[in-house]
């Protein structure tokens, strides 16, 4: 048994917005898929298998929509897998696709993730379809408050993340939110949704899709700048039981350690050049910096406070604007992987981090209980000691 390296040679995403009324679900996924294929200089005919990921079908009200999307994704006559791992699904979908390449089953795999949230009511869906849904913000706010208590982080840290990611989004032509006059004051004065989360500390509800073409070493020769998936890992844990640490879930810690070890990373803070992390609510930036052992306990918010996580900082986080600027839920995890890959390809445009060689993509979901992580490199030996 052996494992082939897996490269990303095509990346596509849609313009994300509140309601993409100009396209159907099929049109939305096809827009991303065609862009990924064009980037890879391939067509649907070159693809061996398709992996589709999205969050609950209840968001759009279509059961197993990949069945009807098979036609739009050129999947007829091919294997098609549908992944669903809650909010982490976009990340998991890339990882499932990468295993098809690494195991030598297929040479070229198209992975696609999307959500068309304007077709339904995501808040209703997130609440399990039951009345009185508290939404994701309601579920996570107590964890955030607990983090603030533990770490003694001042309240303005959340506002800083909200401002930074929205300023980054102004450099990303695909981002949903474009808040030109974003400021700490504006975030602070926005309505309180779920204490301590203000309106502007929360992600939007978006329509959008992301697609990538994955291939093996031979296939990667067709493009000048493939991004290599140096390692990936997934972890899941039960969402509720006495004694569970929901602020720094063990699944997140172990997932990070697994992916670092597989990539040969011993000091993530030094060896990773840029990270795209699932931050749907501002506070999850410092929480995951600590939750994935990038920062020492209680030190994550200080990285934010010092400006380390800005595009020009020592550890840029979410230069794309992140989930705080675009959140088509099923696609959000794949967008993290795609943006991490764009960085090491040197193809991130205005939000490019200078000299990025190693990047981290991360997605989480459920009650902060599902994790999917990958380390990308500009070359197979990008991780230095």
């Amino acid at each position, binding site marked *: 048994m052996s494992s082939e390296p897996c490269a990303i040679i095509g990346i596509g995403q849609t313009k994300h917005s509140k309601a993409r009324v100009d396209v159907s679900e099929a049109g939305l996924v096809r827009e991303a898929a065609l862009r990924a294929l064009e980037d890879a200089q391939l067509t649907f005919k070159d693809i061996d298998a398709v992996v589709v990921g999205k969050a609950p079908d*209840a968001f759009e009200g279509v059961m197993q929509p990949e069945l009807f999307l098979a036609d739009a994704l050129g999947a007829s006559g091919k294997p098609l*897998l549908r992944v669903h791992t809650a909010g982490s699904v976009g990340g998991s979908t890339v990882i499932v696709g990468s295993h098809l390449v690494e195991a030598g089953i297929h040479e070229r795999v198209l992975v696609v993730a999307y959500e068309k949230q304007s077709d339904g009511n995501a808040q209703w869906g997130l609440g*399990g*379809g039951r009345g009185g849904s508290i939404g994701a913000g309601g579920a996570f706010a107590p964890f955030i408050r607990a983090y603030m208590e533990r770490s003694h982080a001042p309240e303005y840290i959340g506002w800083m993340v909200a401002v930074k990611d929205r300023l980054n989004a102004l450099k990303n032509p695909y981002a949903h939110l474009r808040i030109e006059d974003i400021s700490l004051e504006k975030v602070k004065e926005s309505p309180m949704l779920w204490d301590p989360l203000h309106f502007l500390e929360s992600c939007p509800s978006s329509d959008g899709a992301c697609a990538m073409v994955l291939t093996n070493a031979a296939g990667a020769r067709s493009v000048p700048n493939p991004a290599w998936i140096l390692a990936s890992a997934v*972890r899941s844990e039960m969402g509720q039981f006495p004694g569970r640490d929901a602020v720094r879930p063990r699944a997140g810690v172990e997932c990070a350690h697994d992916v670092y070890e597989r990539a040969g990373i011993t000091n993530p803070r030094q060896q990773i050049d840029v990270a795209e992390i699932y931050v749907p609510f501002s506070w999850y930036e410092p929480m995951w910096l600590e939750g994935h052992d990038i920062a020492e306990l209680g030190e994550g918010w200080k990285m934010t406070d010092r400006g380390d996580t800005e595009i020009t900082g020592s550890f840029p986080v979410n230069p794309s604007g992140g989930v705080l600027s675009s959140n088509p839920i099923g696609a959000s995890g794949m967008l993290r992987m795609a943006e991490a890959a764009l960085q090491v390809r040197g193809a991130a445009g205005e939000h490019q981090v200078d000299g990025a060689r190693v990047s981290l993509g991360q997605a989480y979901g459920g009650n902060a209980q599902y994790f999917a992580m990958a380390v990308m490199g500009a070359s197979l030996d990008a991780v230095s000691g």
Partner: protein
Amino acid sequence: MAPVDIAIVGWSQSSLVSAAPVSEPHLCLQTVTAAIAHSGVGLREIGFTCSGSCDYLSGGPFVFVANLEAAGAWPPISESHVEMDGAWALYEAWVRLQEGDIDTALVFGSGKSSPSDRAQLYPQQMDPYYLAPLGADPDSLAAIQARALIDSGKATERDFAEVVQRSLRNAKSNPNVVQSGDFDIDALLAAGYVNSPLRPHDLPPVTDGAAAVVLATADRARQLTDRPVWIRGIDHRIEPHYPGVRDLTSSPSAALAARKAGIGDGAVDIAEISAVYSPQEIILREALGLGDSVAVNPSGGALAANPVMATGLIRIIEAARRVADGSARRVLAHAAGGQCLQQNLVCIMEAE
């Protein structure tokens, strides 16, 4: 590089009943626990877990999250989920095991069909712009497929009844079915239509249930059992969604999956296939190239019990256990997804 052999080393099915009195996580817990015990692998040793289920069957989002409890996801586990029959979860786990860094995987599939009305539920699975508004339900679509089969001259209503008669007779020796028995063909044909040309017996019974399988790499499998069941090939294919652009009397995706899985490498003794409507067995026999010497659905198949999202995984179990007990040497199992056999998976297994 050619895929390496992976073995099935343990399995279990829950009771398959028309309405289970326990929750889906409970069904999964019983089944996973039994499969793990059967395999001899410790639950904590499992390298990767993958499950298959469908939110819509239970009428809510994130239904599969609760099933994590059955997988014993504490301490945290390496895990994934497909919104598909558990047979595809087995495929994902089989792929994961190819990489060689782990040596065991746990797979399970589960579904409770009893809470919903399939005539209301399944139109939601069809294209939301053109088909769902028509209320395109599975019984009607299966009837269109059956009618096309009759019109093509490939089968008659009597042929459908013969499939039912044999399936339910076979099911008599399977204690874990919803329905079984000896039926007279003419008596079956005397019943009225549900959706012409389909009669009640041509439809699958509403079934709740779960199934679980433990997989191991070659070296690990030989440590665990004297009779590993080797997966020699597994492949799956999809075809267009719109019934109008397909020839419903054939299943090119099933034929292609069978070819890729290595059907041409040798005759199979038995085939367990997910023909949830009786005419589909006739279509699949032709697509899979199953001659008269092949025993099809000795378990009774999906016409005897159809726990959606576990039906395909149960076909793999029913075929595998006949290899393990020595009554068959080379077997085929088939799973299906979507309507009118839109998506098909074929798994070929052998004895040592």
